[in-house]
């Protein structure tokens, strides 16, 4: 079947089975490979994208369900929060192998868009669905706080 999906501000017509997880549509059909496959069962967060602004696990979202949503992937996430997060990630050299980091960044950006000054508890809640097998957690936490600080500085 043919579906029209909105990804990164563009409309794409894709011929795929409606049951195909969004993850594989992004990766195989649209060649947006920044979104990773880590578990396929919504356990690791490596496949996180924004669906209508919400962080969602694309590995368990069938194509037919997201056909009318606005989808944003790591390749196109932008705005003040995304910039602040990337700058903080870079300043602390957060990634090790890097494989989880697209998903981590998508979740961190979504967190900062809703909570300006997250507490450690907020960070735990927002980020505990994302596994980092390299255990870069402390740097992720510190970078989120850095990014929040940057964003507060920009608004005052």
């Amino acid at each position, binding site marked *: 079947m043919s579906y029209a999906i909105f990804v990164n501000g563009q409309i794409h017509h894709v011929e*795929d*089975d409606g049951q*195909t*997880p969004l993850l*594989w549509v992004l*990766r*195989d*059909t649209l*060649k*947006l*490979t*920044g*979104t*990773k*496959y*880590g*578990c*396929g*069962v919504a*356990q*690791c967060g*490596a496949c996180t994208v924004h669906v209508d602004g919400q962080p969602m696990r694309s590995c368990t979202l069938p194509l037919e369900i997201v056909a009318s949503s606005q989808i944003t*992937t*790591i*390749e196109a996430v932008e705005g003040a929060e995304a910039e602040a997060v*990337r700058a903080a*990630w*870079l300043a602390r*050299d*957060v*990634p*090790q*192998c*890097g*494989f*989880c*980091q*697209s998903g981590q*960044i998508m979740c961190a950006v979504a967190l900062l868009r809703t909570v300006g000054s997250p507490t450690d508890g907020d*960070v*735990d809640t927002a*980020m*505990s*669905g*994302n*596994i*980092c*097998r*390299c*255990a*870069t*957690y*402390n*740097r*992720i*936490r510190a970078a989120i706080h850095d990014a929040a600080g940057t964003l507060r500085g920009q608004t005052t």
Partner: protein
Amino acid sequence: MTESKVEKRRFAMTRRRLILGGSLVGGALVVGYTATHPMQVAGAILQGGGSDPEPSVFGPFVRIGADDWVTVVNKHQEMGQGIHTALAAMVAEELDADWDRVRVVDARGNFRAYGPQLTAGSNSVASNWDTLRNAGAAARTMFVAAAAARWGVSPQSIAIRDSIVSHTGSGRSATFAELLTDASRQTPPQAPELKQPEDYRLIGTDRVRRKDTVPKITGGQVYTQDVDLPDMLVAMVAHSPRFGGKLARFDASDALKIPAVVDAFAIETGVAVVAENTFAARRGRDALRVEWDDSKAETRSTPELFRYYHEVAAGRTDIEPNVLETKGHPDAQFGSDVLEFTFDFPYLAHAPLEPMNCVAQIDGWDIKIMSGTQLVTLDQVHAARIGLTIPGKVDIEVLPAGGSFGRRGTATSDFVVECLRIARHTNGRPVKLIWTREDDMAGGFYRPMVHHRAWIELGPDGFPARWRHHVVSQEMVPIGGNFQNFEGITGSPYFVTASVVDGKIFSPSHPVQCGFWRSVGLSHTGMVMEHIIDQLARQARRDPADYRWALYQRAGAARHLAVLNELCLKSGWGSPIETGWARGMAITECFGTVVGQVAEVRIQEGRPVVRKVTAVVDCGIPISPDQIAAQMEGSIGFGLTAALYGAVTLKDGFVQETNFDSYPILRMNEMPTVETHIIRSANRPTGMGEPGVPPIAPAVANAMLILTGSPTTSLPILSGNALGNSNVSVRS
């Protein structure tokens, strides 16, 4: 002074001889693994591992371009451990290059140019320390000579700083790019002078940072999973659900009805389904009907296997042990006051976040492979065997790996070989083999299951007088008599007061494949030795730090002593701590690096909670303090995951933990804060990818011993029942 003389002599060997030396090392390893294929061994040595790389007058590891950038060639696998950074810093330091204009590229598999390409044993820093400093220093000498000649001044009056070559007297200066042609005409010196550590401007500073962060935060980094080639197929394989099972028969008629499924066929490891995309391959595989022949398969369950291991340790089977440590009369009778310790450890999966995968294409005699792989040279040999060609025809593009922890470095090159076997069926079309998370978890090459049994008699002074130690564990590789599983016991400083040591390993063999798992043998011996020592200290009514101090002192273990002293200082050892909390300590040496950790632990609802870990490391000259800290943090998270949760168990031979819901990984809310302190050292640097793992489990267990009075006798701490042991329970 002595050290630099030795180094000069070593480099005085010609490059040809250095590389020949490398081939012999690689040759020996290759012989050990594939003795039945002497032609491939000969091929690896004689033909090299590929065509010449991009030629550079500065040797195989350094390229300098007209853009003034210095490119360092990384012959190792970057899997998160940051090796690319450490290697680049060695070159940049000696070359006095501007670090901000240094980039790193990953070498393709090329035995002739780079020697053996094997990333293992936290060895890449140590094994490249001479080669890469010499490469940088040789290039520097060539620029100095070129500038001296151009300006008619003595080489001694030339300085280089941040890639600018200058003459102090006249104020003249030039960039590398401007001097490039002249420099390339110089003869590379055989024994360039190397800096003394006190003159380092880059190494050891916080400027030595990763070079790959930007692609990893933009989604731009290409891993094997992301490779997309024209006309590429995607493959998945139905593997035997039991280890050692063989394909009996299969029916692919339903699979082949699925649009975009191209073919399905039997290969040595199961049934391969190839399709135009990943999801179709997955659906095709799900639609297969497969019957397995389990006549030679492992059908036991984990509790049964442990019972069997206990029988083996007690000497009640016909498995003959291998003696790995002995002192005095090993057969000596032990007295009745002997203390007895037992430990059980389960299989552990590496579970890197990127499951195994590989891209391969066979085109006549030529084989092309793209994959993140630790043992490139070995893969070339195995690939040549499968593709019926010579290793020189196997071109491997080594991609960064989304984690590995030893999984992407197996003696059989398992997933690379599997991909090639599929590629033989695709008429020259490239094929990307994808393992699902479930394939990866159930796919073996685990840290082995291990049983330890130790009998120790204390002398009147409270220190070990007799120590008998039996280990039962499958071999990780079929060479070396299983010594890898005894590392950490062998040569322990805790044997110094013992007049009798009797160390043996029993190596049962069954179809579950085992392999190297981050920190290898220390992943269990570290726990055993460090938890025993706290129990002995308790028996002797001494403080654990004090007890270790006395043993290290007598053993002359100067580096352990220094780590212990610093650890006590930085962790507040001995100072009061809130009620309900306790500190536990452990110190291990792994691949030449000594690490001590103190964990602050309390027990909440029956579970240990670790809030903070203070870590001290002696890894010789620290190259990148930031990356040393990063590896310490990561290793603690990795080791704590194993300590709390890690277990792959079998039920009737079937793996029970096949995804992260049943094989939990430590998450953000459980990660302790980590403080890393680095011992100042002028010794040759040693590795950091693995040595931070072993101490955390015993540090936590030692704190729990204080809190509960009960020793930990098996891991993981939180799911002992899965192992069929009744002796694991957390008391609060």
